[in-house]
């Protein structure tokens, strides 16, 4: 049995434990008394606040009951915010305002941005952060960078700076974050980067050290996606064979845990799985299973789950399907149970920290202004899951890298929900324990466990992947989704319902001008020329480490000083070979 079978069993066992506790609470007077006393204490500890209109509100809403069975069901089945099994939330207060509205909780906003050359994205970061409370810089890279190619690679010029920022060298990385104090406590940098993640993170660190000195490592806070399993399954940015990719990843994680203590070196992502077509249940099941696989791999290398566990983070999609009302909640619960009961992790390592992005695929070209409403609805669902961070898509998503206007609207959508509306700032746990949520949670959880068991019979995540299991499921579901749209089974306003004859308005596009693309190539050429003497030796050292047993990430920190991303990729594929893609 792969660990997925044991995890499914542990969840069933945990649910039986909860049922048992409920029965005991009802049958055993002494236990009932203890629970009531505990419940009373919890209630007493709840602080009160006041809405602007003068209504007194508890900062934590709890089920209105005194019945011991119901108390047990809530405390063990759902958990208080910040308590096992974390269905309600990872932390106690989440978005609640503090000090009478002076300070927010952790600001979840992370707006994914990237376009053109480094300074174009830098300007976009400045534009966005002017309109946000904290410094949250989330980076989108262009196609060549995502595939580890330099901007001068044959045939890629037209894609340079499209859909994200072009980064070839450590110098581009310096330009990207110029002017931002990344050591500020409220600063956080995310990078959507996968196969070349180790080289890109190494460039980031090298650039940060140049600006803030070597001491900055303890202060740098952020996330790099680096989730290669979902790349094989859904996003298709794999460069090296899977075993080599996993080694590079694990080397990076092992380096980051002690050296970059505030950094999340992997973001285990379901977003791409869902956007490629998977159902919400498949998304959750494949993503959690990938996460458990990383835990196993790291443990096999001798790493301690209590040290690396807290540095794993997650990323889910949030669309309009009803399952999204509970997806984050269910995932947190299953992760906590699996980590505690199968991997023996302690409390800090049990918590699933969640980033959410609203669904890009739910946004369509026809009547595209409706996309504002779709995104706002999805945001609401994401917050009801108490996501730790969140990206909201722009209404012009189907056409282009977001233009300023729509990116700002997307940013403000989050601010309106969190800051302007009273929904999330006064009272924590709006709906937890409600009948609808409970019913959905049960069904979604069951669906996820069924997928775990199916993958278990195939031998676990990696063997299933080699058999194309995840890819075929995702493709089937993606096909069904499109068929549902065009058969009218899945209503899409403006596309298959309430269609008007309005012509498509002219939508401004954010595209990179050819002369900018050539400028990027010129910069790269200058960098290569400058380091032409040192690069070969640096690449040779990298090759030696890869052939040996050393930590590849450790060496990359040196390599990036004199080598470009494309040079590094070519060196690595020369040693470990290329990934053989699947349909």
């Amino acid at each position, binding site marked *: 049995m792969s660990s997925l079978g044991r995890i499914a069993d542990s969840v069933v066992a945990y649910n039986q434990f909860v049922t048992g506790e409920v029965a005991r609470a009802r049958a055993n007077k002494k236990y009932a008394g203890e629970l009531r006393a505990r419940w009373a204490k919890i209630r007493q500890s709840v602080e009160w606040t006041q809405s602007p209109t003068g209504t007194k509100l508890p900062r934590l809403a709890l089920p209105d009951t005194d019945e011991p069975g119901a108390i047990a069901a809530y405390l063990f089945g759902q958990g208080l915010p910040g308590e096992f099994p974390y269905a309600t939330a990872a932390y106690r207060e989440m978005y609640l305002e503090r000090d009478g509205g002076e300070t927010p909780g952790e600001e979840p906003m992370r707006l994914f941005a990237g376009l053109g050359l480094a300074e174009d994205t830098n300007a976009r970061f400045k534009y966005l952060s002017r309109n946000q409370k904290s410094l949250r810089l989330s980076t989108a890279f262009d196609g060549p960078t995502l595939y580890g190619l330099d901007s001068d690679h044959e*045939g890629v010029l037209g*894609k340079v700076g499209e859909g994200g920022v072009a980064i070839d060298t450590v110098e581009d990385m310096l330009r990207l974050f110029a002017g931002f104090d990344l050591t500020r406590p409220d600063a956080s940098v995310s990078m959507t980067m996968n196969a070349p993640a180790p080289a890109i993170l190494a460039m980031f660190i090298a650039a940060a050290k140049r600006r803030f000195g070597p001491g900055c490592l303890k202060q740098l806070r952020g996330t790099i996606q680096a989730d290669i399993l979902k790349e094989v399954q859904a996003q298709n940015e794999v460069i090296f064979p899977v075993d080599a990719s996993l080694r590079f990843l694990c080397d990076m994680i092992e380096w980051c845990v002690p050296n970059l203590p505030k950094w999340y070196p992997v973001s285990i992502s379901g977003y791409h799985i869902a956007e490629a077509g998977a159902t919400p249940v498949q998304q959750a099941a494949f993503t959690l299973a990938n996460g458990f696989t990383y835990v196993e791999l790291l443990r096999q290398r001798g790493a301690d789950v209590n040290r690396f566990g807290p540095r794993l983070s997650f990323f889910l999609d949030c669309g309009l399907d009803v399952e999204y009302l509970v997806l984050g909640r269910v995932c947190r619960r299953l992760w906590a149970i699996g980590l505690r009961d199968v991997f023996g992790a302690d409390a800090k390592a049990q918590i699933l920290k969640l980033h959410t992005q609203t669904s890009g695929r739910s946004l369509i070209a*026809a009547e595209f202004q409706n996309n504002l409403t779709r995104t706002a609805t999805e945001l609401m669902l994401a917050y009801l899951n108490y996501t730790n961070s969140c990206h909201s898509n722009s209404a012009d998503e189907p*056409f282009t890298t977001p233009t300023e206007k729509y990116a700002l609207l997307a940013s403000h959508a989050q601010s309106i929900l969190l800051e302007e509306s009273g929904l999330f700032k006064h009272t924590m746990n709006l709906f937890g324990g409600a009948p609808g949520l409970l019913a959905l949670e049960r069904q979604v959880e069951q669906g996820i466990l069924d997928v775990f068991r199916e993958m278990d019979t195939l031998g676990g995540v990696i063997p299933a992947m080699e058999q194309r299991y995840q890819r075929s499921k995702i493709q089937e579901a993606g096909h069904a989704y499109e068929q549902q749209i065009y058969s009218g089974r899945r209503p899409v306003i403006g596309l298959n319902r309430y269609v008007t004859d309005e012509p*498509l308005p002219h939508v401004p596009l954010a595209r990179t001008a050819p002369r900018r693309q050539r400028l990027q190539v010129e910069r790269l050429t200058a960098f290569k020329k400058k380091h032409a003497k040192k690069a070969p030796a640096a690449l040779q050292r990298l090759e030696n480490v890869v052939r040996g047993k050393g930590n590849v990430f450790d060496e990359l920190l040196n390599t990036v000083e004199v080598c470009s991303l494309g040079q590094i990729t070519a060196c690595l594929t020369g040693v470990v070979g290329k990934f*053989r893609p699947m349909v």
Partner: protein
Amino acid sequence: MNRIFPPDARNAPAAVTAIFIPLGDRSPVAGLVPGARFHPMAAPPLRLLTAVPLCDGHDSAITTINLELARHGIEVIYLGYHQSVAAIVRAAIQEDVNAVGLSSYNGGHLIFFREVVRRLRAGGGGDIPVFGGGGGTITPADARVMQRDGVDRIFFAGTSLDRIMAEIKTRYARPAKPARKLKGDRALARAITIAETATFTGDTPRSSGGAKPRAQVVGVAGPGGAGKSTLIDELTSRFLQKIPRGRIALLANDPSHPGTGGAILGDRVSAIYAQDDRVFFRSLATRGSLTGLSAAAPAAIEILRNSGKFDLIFVESVGVGQESDPFNVFHGRKLVDTVLYVLPPHYGGRIQLQKIALLNGADLVVLNKCDDPRAHAAKAEIQTRLDQNQRGQRLHATTAATHSDPGVDRLFAAIAELGGLDPARGGEKACQMEVSP
């Protein structure tokens, strides 16, 4: 009018289920439901090439389109995502497709499509129309520019799948005619298409004359998922590394869908070393043939052999069962010079091994997936089985999935020796860069 969604979006096509054949389920007669009948058709299926451009991994649209095309009886040769202009053009020419469909999302489509059209023209495939889509990222204004540059058709966001299928079927259905004008790989590819059509319509494929050239033809058989395609690709890389000149041809047979007659021929996706002008790769759908090869395969082999262009030709059969004999080892004229039989370690046991007829007839027997713990015991068992044949057959152990596996090196050396390929001298046939403009 910039209406980007069609008015027919509301029309409901009948619900269908996706066609999917997981790798593991592809045996013994790959993908064919026992008893399934092929619908006789008036015309041979359309053959289309589909792909996603370089630095782009958005494959959800194209995989949906592929499934729909196959459901509509079309043969799709899918090249995969992150594909260069050169790879797309090479594949279009070698596969002699009716048209090329591209799905582009990561921008740069104006340049990319234009380059595909330009290089197709330069490489002797100017008659192959190029069409595609990319949701909202390709605007109507872009499409006008692209059309001016020679792109045939762009399908905008919101176009219903039924409408796309109907249009493709009417726009790109054209019978393949023998064409004297065609040159190089395209001429070769067209000859194979004509042979396929002849088989389809019941005519006997043109038999080829000419002197017997010395290309070595290796037929590769084995159960579904044994690693045949992976192994052939690794052997291709050895050919490219070790034989400095000369060309190699690959003929990949894959099952058609029994119900619709369509097919998704995906072997090119995983053939990472076939992306080289020294490689000629052709996919053949079985079109109802149950022998493990397309009925046109014998003719295609002759065409490739007699072209005099190749030193080495690999023919991959679909996954075969215990009694299959795709290359006529036991009956009739042997179709290939060398039969290579690939087994995975999980073949069952001694009894199953006894029943595999091709273990008697194969010239080379390979145990692949030697990274599997069961391989050790399997090696001894298979060698014992081969010793019974008293033909001096030696078992090759490979792990094709590993980069630079020494077992594959040895296997390649054995093949090269059988075929008289001299690594030092290079292949006999001059390398002909037919495609690159």
